[in-house]
């Protein structure tokens, strides 16, 4: 059977003279097959996917063959940067416009694509009001509308909560049964195990077939620490008698009971996409839309610029936190501004095994690497309160563990960590804050 897409002996590098990023890559995708590529952060997985989709901006040798009449579709990691229109109807129709389809034929095709992904909403629905999971489905619909033969997805697990992953798996199963070939790039291949036929590992530029991954990607492991927060003299870092957090449009996100967090505590903030985790962290950092709430952080009302380097905030999509021209400059920016020792930057880069990227532009690195750089630039400030929004997104298990080790060191020095995540994790946390049914529920873990 002729493959829908085949890559034959692909070699490529970002620039002439640079070491090969991909070397001797060969891969064939047949109708109804699902292949999954795993590999370390920065191994070149996304580059390979772009190349397979015909969108690679790298120097390349070898042959890419696409069966006649077959179109390729690619859904990248961050839906926010791929959405081009204001309403879902116009967003999905964009492909049809570019293919020269008559406007009178578009509505039926657009409606069908939206129904296939379970997003059967009016055409005039504003994209901005969709949750992240819905935006991801919209991106898939925007690709399905042109009826591709091959669908490629870049790390969907990191963007979705468990329910989103289940819905996506069901959708992909349906598409696979219809004869579509699927190519996933995913650290957490186990989450899509029922779908995947062939597993590949990308390492040192080479793609090798791997055994069927029956084991889940190991979760990062925190060492339990009670040194600070159970001490009677523990410094209270965050306190509130309770509040209602509202969306910027005035819609209530959730109600919170009284909260108290001490130095050295690790709080895990869990909830599904769109429940208000990021809004809560933004409010605590003093940079959200909600103000005037009865919350005290380090004895002060959260306000922008109040805490200096004592409070750090790693946002979702950390690539948005990078502005400098080299990784080294990125790390030294805040150290310089706050008058802290510059050598901390090099130390943290070594701890995260990213010292080799010091002179690279942070804007040209992979999603996972950008994540590490943004994190490193904050860790080196050694804050007293560290807010992290999904800090393990896009990271392989090795780098996740390195991040955990660094956070563990901060915690041992008394830093309070509040980590937001889509899914519950065992991180030796002292409290878990669950946001469900528009309420924040506090669960105290391991305290006597």
């Amino acid at each position, binding site marked *: 059977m002729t493959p829908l897409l085949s890559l034959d002996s692909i070699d490529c590098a970002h620039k002439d003279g640079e070491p090969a990023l991909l070397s001797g890559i060969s891969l064939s995708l047949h109708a109804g097959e699902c292949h999954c590529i795993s590999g370390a952060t920065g191994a070149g997985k996304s580059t390979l996917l772009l190349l397979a989709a015909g969108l690679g901006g790298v120097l390349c040798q070898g042959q890419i063959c696409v069966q006649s009449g077959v179109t390729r579709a690619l859904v990248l990691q961050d839906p926010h940067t791929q959405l081009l229109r204001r309403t879902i109807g116009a967003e999905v129709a964009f*492909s049809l*416009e570019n293919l*020269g389809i*008559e406007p009178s034929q*578009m509505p*039926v095709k657009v409606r069908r694509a939206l129904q296939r992904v379970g997003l059967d909403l009016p055409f*005039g629905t504003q994209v901005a*009001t969709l*949750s992240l999971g819905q935006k991801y489905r919209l991106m898939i619909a925007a690709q399905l509308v042109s009826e591709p033969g091959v669908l490629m997805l870049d790390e969907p697990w990191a963007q979705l909560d468990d329910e989103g992953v289940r819905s996506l798996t069901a959708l992909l199963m349906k598409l696979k049964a219809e004869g579509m070939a699927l190519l996933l790039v995913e650290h957490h291949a186990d989450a899509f195990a029922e779908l995947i036929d062939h597993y590949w590992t990308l390492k040192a530029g080479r793609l090798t077939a791997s055994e069927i991954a029956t084991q889940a990607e190991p979760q990062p492991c925190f060492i339990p620490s009670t040194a600070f927060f159970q001490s009677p003299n523990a410094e209270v870092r965050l306190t509130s008698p309770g509040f209602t957090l509202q969306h910027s449009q005035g819609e209530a996100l959730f109600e919170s009971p009284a909260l108290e967090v001490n130095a050295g505590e690790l709080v895990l903030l869990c909830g599904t996409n769109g429940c208000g985790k990021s809004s809560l962290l933004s409010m605590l950092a003093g940079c959200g839309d909600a103000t005037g709430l009865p919350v005290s952080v380090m004895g002060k009302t959260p306000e922008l610029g109040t805490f200096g380097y004592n409070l750090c905030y790693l946002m979702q999509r950390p690539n948005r936190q990078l502005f400098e021209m080299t990784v080294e400059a990125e790390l030294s920016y805040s150290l310089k501004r706050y008058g802290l020792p510059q050598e901390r930057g090099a130390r943290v880069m070594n701890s995260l095994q990213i010292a080799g990227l010091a002179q690279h532009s942070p804007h040209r690195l992979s999603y996972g690497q950008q994540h590490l750089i943004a994190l490193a630039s904050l860790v080196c400030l050694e804050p007293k309160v560290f807010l992290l929004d999904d800090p393990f997104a896009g990271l392989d298990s090795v780098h996740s563990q390195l991040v955990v080790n660094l956070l563990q060191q901060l915690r041992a020095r008394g830093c309070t960590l509040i980590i937001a995540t889509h899914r519950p994790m065992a991180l030796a946390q002292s409290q878990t804050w669950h946001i469900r049914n528009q309420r924040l529920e506090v669960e105290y873990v391991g305290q006597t």
Partner: protein
Amino acid sequence: MWARRKISVVESQPGQWCGTAIILVTVMSACAFLLSDSALPLLALANLPMLIQGSRLGSLKGILVVFALQLLMTSLFYLLLYGWQSLPQAALVVFRLLLALIPGWWLSARFAPEQLGSSLARVLPSKWAFVLAATLSLLPHIQREAMEIYRLQCLRGAPITKRALRNPKNWLELGPCLLFPLLIELMKLSRQQALAAKSRHFGTHPKPTHWQAPEDL
């Protein structure tokens, strides 16, 4: 979970006025630079309905922030080069810039990118029309982006918090800490959007068509 947020639906807007609006906006923006000082109040009056409708469709805060920043930077520049007597002249320059900006801001808030693209494609090559429409649609986005970058930079220790800006010494920090990162961010976004458009067959058909929002099926 993906169905919890309050979903907002917009009525499909008639697109036939979009072409006329583009011409009107171009003329009004040009007038902001070409008219004499004495005619500027009349032009400001003509801008008023746009300002009112635009503020209902989007936020007015962004344009006010741009105006305040521009006034600050230009005044500082004029003060350093020509002395304090030149400050009214600086204010006039910024006022003209604001009058040139308001029509484009209104246009981007009032019409969807596909409507702008469709109208522009009648007079421009389709690729140019898309790029121009995408650029106009970025105007409201720039405001959000600038606010986000401002917050991020304050967290990173840039001396541009409200308190820090009370010291005029810090005003010059707005350039490297806010304007340059905004430029970098917009360049990054443009690249990402170009890739997203290319992944959806942009540029493959010599005569692309345009989505016309129908009554919902």
